[in-house]
């Protein structure tokens, strides 16, 4: 009777294992893309990358007058946006739970109306969940008419739950052009 050639058998086994490994490659590719939501979830849960809330927090809190936290402000304008943008004061000392209002100034130096979007970032990253914004110009895009200057308020408080060792928080705003331009 016809016997199976061992070479044919081996070739078949090789092909089978090769295809199995190809599945592994596919799984690794999926894993690579799955890392994107995974990363975002990790960052939201832990506040690792200093992202803060994009919508308003409630103003309900209690004052902890025993402690003081310094909140520093920095600002930058990304390429593609012809604005001046800076905080009116470099820093402010607040008690946790104390609601403070600070002003940022944006000036459109272009001769046309431009919309911008501010992206906040908090450092140290672990402090970001405790930085509560009640009202912020970063919640929506801001449109400035040609050569218009606007003072934009930020109302915030630092949660009393913030770890004891955090004495200074730096809040950075980067203003982007809200209309994607082709480059």
């Amino acid at each position, binding site marked *: 009777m016809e016997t199976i050639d061992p070479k044919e058998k081996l070739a078949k086994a*090789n092909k089978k294992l090769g295809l199995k490994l190809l599945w592994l*490659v596919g799984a690794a590719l999926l894993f690579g893309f799955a890392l994107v939501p995974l990363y975002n979830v990790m960052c939201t849960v832990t506040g690792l990358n200093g992202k803060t809330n994009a919508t308003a927090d409630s103003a309900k809190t209690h004052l902890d007058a025993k402690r003081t936290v310094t909140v520093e402000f920095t600002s930058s304008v990304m390429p593609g946006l012809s604005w001046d943008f800076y905080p009116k004061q470099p820093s402010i000392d607040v008690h946790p739970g104390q609601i403070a209002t600070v002003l940022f100034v944006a000036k459109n130096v272009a001769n046309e109306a431009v919309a911008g979007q501010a992206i906040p970032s908090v450092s140290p990253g672990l402090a970001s969940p405790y930085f509560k914004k009640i009202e912020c110009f970063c919640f929506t895009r801001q449109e400035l008419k040609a050569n218009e200057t606007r003072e934009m308020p930020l109302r915030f408080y630092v949660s009393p739950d913030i770890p004891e060792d955090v004495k200074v928080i730096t809040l950075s705003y980067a203003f982007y052009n809200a209309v994607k331009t082709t480059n």
Partner: protein
Amino acid sequence: MSNATAVHHDAHDAHPTGIMRWLTTTNHKDIGTMYLTFSLIMFLVGGSMILGVRAELFKPGLQLMRPEFFNQLIGVHALVMIFAALMPAATGFANWMLPLQIGAPDMALPRLNNWGFWLLPPAAILLTLPFTLALFGIGDGAVATGWTMYAPLSVQGGIGVDFAIFSVHLLGISSVLGSINVIVTILNMRAPGMTLMKMPMFAWGWLITAFLLIATIPVLAGAVTMLLTDRHFGTHFFDAAGGGDPILFQHLFWFFGHPEVYILLLPVWGFMPQILQTFSRKPMYGYKAQVYSLWAIGALSVVVWAHHFFTVGMPVPALLYFMYSTMSISLPLAVLFYCWIATIWKGSLSFETPMLFAVGWIILFGIGGLTGLVLADVAADAQYHHSYFVVAHFHYTLFAGGIMGIMAGVYYWLPKMTGHMYNEKLGKIHFWLTAISFNMTFIPQFFLGLAGMPRRIPDYALQFAEFNMISSIAAFALGLSQLLFVYNIIMCVRGGKKATDKVWEGAQGLEWTLPSPPPYHSFTEQPTIK
């Protein structure tokens, strides 16, 4: 992808001649030769690029090139050396030697093997084509972001970035195909009686390499694909304005990038003990310990990636985790070093060229490993990050640990592959010139880095001038010394003293039981291992 034809093909020795032989070949020796030749050519290409860089850095100020072109040279140099020189060299050895070492007639998937190789030349062309296009006024040159292609710089870059992305895709497919082939070959094609724990160490090194490639290359492919869609299709994976995060790219990149270091080194850690035992005329010390250490390093390599960007502003617990996990890799690595040294300890040593390279490799790679430990220290890294200290460190691991290791392998197996002995005297001169000029190139860079000279900048402050001059002169000496290597290989291929089957007095392993050069089809009847 029918293997049946390839199997029947074994029955007779006829194969096409001329260019068609190389285009259509499914023979593991032919493909191995093509990989190694391609690797050598790209090694010279990548080397010439960096000599341009060193020429610019010879003196402070800008003399020879625009900063943009400088940026292109450093990035493409790295991509060429990593993906087109080191990785194909390791795959070339895998093709040539794995079937011979495990007593298999060929690689398991010969057609795939052919395809895997022929993806490489187009990839190399894609990577370097923008240089040429720029001469004709098309685009602004090759990828100028450094090989890491960090967003947002790479999102804003010119067409060179797109070419690099597609090149990385091709290179990735090629190495994934190669890896699948290696795994199937090792798992299915071993000679009867050769259990996994009787395998040659080279097979172990490559098996783990192949699994690492399969696990991490697709992640890189995904990351550069996201980059591509960010650039052209309005996605915002890495764009903070759209809710993305540029740091995400660094995580994705180094999730691939750190294991990649071990991908480049594990094949060398595989065959190096074989070279050491050959010229020590002793059995390998600590076979099991080495196998377990290779696995441990392979596993640890995928969980330490963030030590490449300690300075992005991670919280302290994350810094500590990545510091300690990175440092823990030095434990299995120390076991390997111990085994390598114990293998030559009290052996009957002789210092032919492969052994010179092997012993020099232990020392120089050791320096690379120890300086890596310094960089793994979070507190110290803040100072050394992105300085020339890092450049010197990874050249000790990848030039000394990688390329000088590959050179040891070339001298070790060249007589087996060609059937001729290479010029021993020239080989020794090549080793000494390489070792001395390599150290002269990179020792000054450690000090430049400690003194604060940043990497990837075409100009530098005046106080760095002397050390940069020394480094540049030595770099040219290092580059020119490699012409001896090329000459020696060419002369060895063309003729020379006949090599015996065993070649080296102390050689152990199946490949030395075959004639030199081995016949086109070998081990059609598999040997039995007791």
